[in-house]
């Protein structure tokens, strides 16, 4: 067991992993495939990965080689050098060059990650015109045609709630659901995330990056799903004891099915509201105070 060879082994293993089958490659890339922004992040990640792999192999290689070649056994007398200005300027500039490449690549890819595209032709009819920025919303990006399905994500200990467009003008009676979000395929979905209590983080890995959900602020993201299916995620920011169980999922269904679901959901909710109203009036009549505290 020579130190140098032991040291080089993990480097070699990782290097081999990098050049081996694409299957093994997926193992070291983020989840993607649900939405174009997730795919663009994946592409950008891979670019960084290629550059990183080269740097990794070169530097670990140089280190391993130096450890092997210049061990006291192999090299009895050390050469007394103090440095080499040319070399030092060279590798500083080399590092700067890599950094510039990365920065340019990021800024080039940024558009496709941040800016939502238009919905497809088959998009859900309930896709509504979204209004432009009002205030403190400069970070909210809209698709070019300003049409998208806007869903509000509400984080609270320890459950996600989703409010869909619809209901009365004052926002009451809008359809909502918990934990599982239902969305139409081929449709650009804009998410506006707010918190009712502590900081949470919205994250469905296959549908793109996460956004912190901070009380007092709104945070935005989007996705556009082509394949119907179930996409899973969970809260990514520590929010208390139930953090690990604060799961979320997005079920993508064909647009027609979505319209059906939302209609049914609206109906259920208004029925439940009516039911609740009658219950309440009964209770009020019976209680004599005319008011129920903390219903």
């Amino acid at each position, binding site marked *: 067991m020579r130190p140098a060879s032991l040291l080089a082994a993990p480097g070699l293993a990782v290097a081999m992993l990098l050049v081996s089958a694409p299957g093994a490659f997926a193992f070291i890339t983020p989840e993607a495939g649900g939405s174009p922004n997730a795919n663009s992040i994946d592409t950008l990640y891979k670019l960084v990965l290629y550059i990183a792999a080269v740097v990794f192999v070169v530097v670990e290689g140089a280190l391993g080689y130096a450890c092997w070649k210049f061990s006291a056994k192999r090299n009895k007398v050390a050469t007394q050098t103090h440095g080499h200005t040319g070399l030092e300027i060279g590798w500083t500039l080399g590092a700067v060059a890599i950094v510039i490449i990365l920065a340019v690549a990021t800024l080039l890819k940024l558009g496709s990650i941040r800016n939502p595209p238009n919905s497809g032709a088959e998009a859900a009819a309930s896709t509504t015109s979204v209004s432009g920025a009002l205030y403190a919303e400069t970070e909210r990006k809209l698709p070019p045609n300003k049409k998208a399905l806007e869903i509000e994500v509400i984080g609270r200990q320890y459950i996600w709630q989703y409010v869909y467009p619809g209901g009365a003008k004052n926002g009451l009676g809008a359809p909502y659901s918990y934990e599982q979000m239902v969305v139409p395929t081929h449709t650009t979905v804009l998410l506006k995330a707010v918190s009712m209590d502590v900081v949470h*983080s919205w994250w469905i890995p296959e549908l793109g990056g996460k956004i912190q959900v901070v009380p007092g602020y709104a945070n935005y993201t989007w996705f556009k799903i082509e394949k119907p299916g179930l996409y899973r*995620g969970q809260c990514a920011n520590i929010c208390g004891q139930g953090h690990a169980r604060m799961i979320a999922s997005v079920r993508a269904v064909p647009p027609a099915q979505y319209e059906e679901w939302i209609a049914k959901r609206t109906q259920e909710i208004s029925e439940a509201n009516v039911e609740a109203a009658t219950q309440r009036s009964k209770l009020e009549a019976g209680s004599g105070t005319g008011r129920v505290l903390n219903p």
Partner: protein
Amino acid sequence: MATYVAPVPQIAAHKVDRESRGWTSWITTTDHKKIGIMYLVTTFVFFILGGTEALLMRLQLGAPENTLINPQTYNELFTMHGTTMIFLFVVPVWAGFANYFLPLMIGARDMAFPRMNALSYWLLLAGGIVFYASIFWTPPSAGWVSYPPLSSIAFSPSGGQDAWIYLIHLTGLSSILGAVNFYATIANMRARGMSWGRLPLFVWTVLVYSILIIFAMPVIAGAVTLLLTDRHFGTHFYDPTQGGSQMLWQNMFWFFGHPEVYIMILPGFGMVSEILPVFAKKPVFGYKAIATSSVTIAFLAFLVWAHHMFTAPIPLVVLAFVMMSSYLIAVPTGVKIFNWIGTLWSGSIEYSTALLFCVGFIAIFLIGGISGVFLAVFPVDWQLNESYFVVAHIHFVLMGGAVFTVFAAVYYWFPKMTGRLMSETLGKLSFWLMFWGFLFTFLIQHVIGLDGMPRRVYEYPNVGNLALYNLISTIGAFILALGILVTIINAARSVKVGAIAGPDPWKANTLEWFTTSPPAVNNFDEIPVIRSVEPMKDFRREIERRTGQRIEQVPVPAGSGEAAASSL
């Protein structure tokens, strides 16, 4: 058993007071060496506590849907672990080494303010005790970053969170006093001839460490004070329902938090820059570049805090700016790695345990640096942030990074502090166990994160390969812990039975080796004039020149180092 022949004492101290003994001499001491040892012992005790908490967490995560530890306890464990490792181990362990060695390395007899120095230590101990006392009630559970509102009175009513706040106050004060002291000592008490360009690189990094502490610690002290008044005195600094702002905390915390990571790693960089030349038997490659890059890092460290907040609601221009500054800080850090490899290059490397830990550090820290670049690309960070990828990253830079250099420092300086060498056999065993244990534990965590597992979760479902990966990580953690245990045993044994080291067992370059091991109370009888970055080399050459012909026939008996030391 030692592979090193006990060397000849070259210079010994004579006009020295008898050393005071007994436990009172410890609690009343203002001697920088005793204070340094108290720092080191205390911080290693906290390291063991923090490590135990880590192992408990890894046990819980060893299997999916495990019920060994309940969610509340798990949250307490990662909060205690992270806080302990940062505030009670890595930051103060460097203060411990700097206390002991900084005056020796610059040829001073003590620190500039010896009593303040003692105060720094006692404040640290008080902070640790206040914090750990909370385990008898309810420990804090909001993570080491303690974001409000989770850390507010409404969501964390227990006194554990307050204990955490006091810990930050007390250890912060301790660090600031220590830093002022280091700065004053370096600025005023260097030996004659030790210009800035001849300052040992470890001292350079302690200087930068001190400057970072002086600028960063007051910010966190202010931030936690506001948290304290929010919790108990009716203010609403962080309460959005009353006009406060959660983002205020995030900004203040990370304005401190990022310099903090350099506070933890820079002295380690300095350590590596001291140890590599000694065992490669050639001067450090690019002294100026290494010193300059430390200073550059210190400056840039204050411009990158928001890279911990890439997913928070902040404007794009800020994200882009912080990405650029984070890339920039990668440059001086990368330059250091090249310089270290340049130091090894065409040397004649002697594989002592101290050197192994340095080389292991470079190999591991490079990976931590590379994963850091992934995280700096902010759209990529949107996927990786708050996932196990980040857990892997912090441990590559802090455990494989900072802690490996701490171990290198232990093996390198133990002979100076105790007069005895540690066992090299146990040392190497410890290194290889730690090295492989570390890679097993943390390499796979990148993959766990990429598969979508968030950090700070007490359980995970049995999907994909998560169960296997987590099991690998847990097994690795126990191998790593075993390696650490071997060093602890090694140190405990060597204090009593280690081979006598003599003043300069490694034929090293800096002034701390110019006195007995352990040094006498006054450190040096006579403080030499410094002519280069490597004064010991100059002295050795000088002694050879003057005495070479005269004593060349006389074989030096082994153990004469001890004889000289006991003749005091």
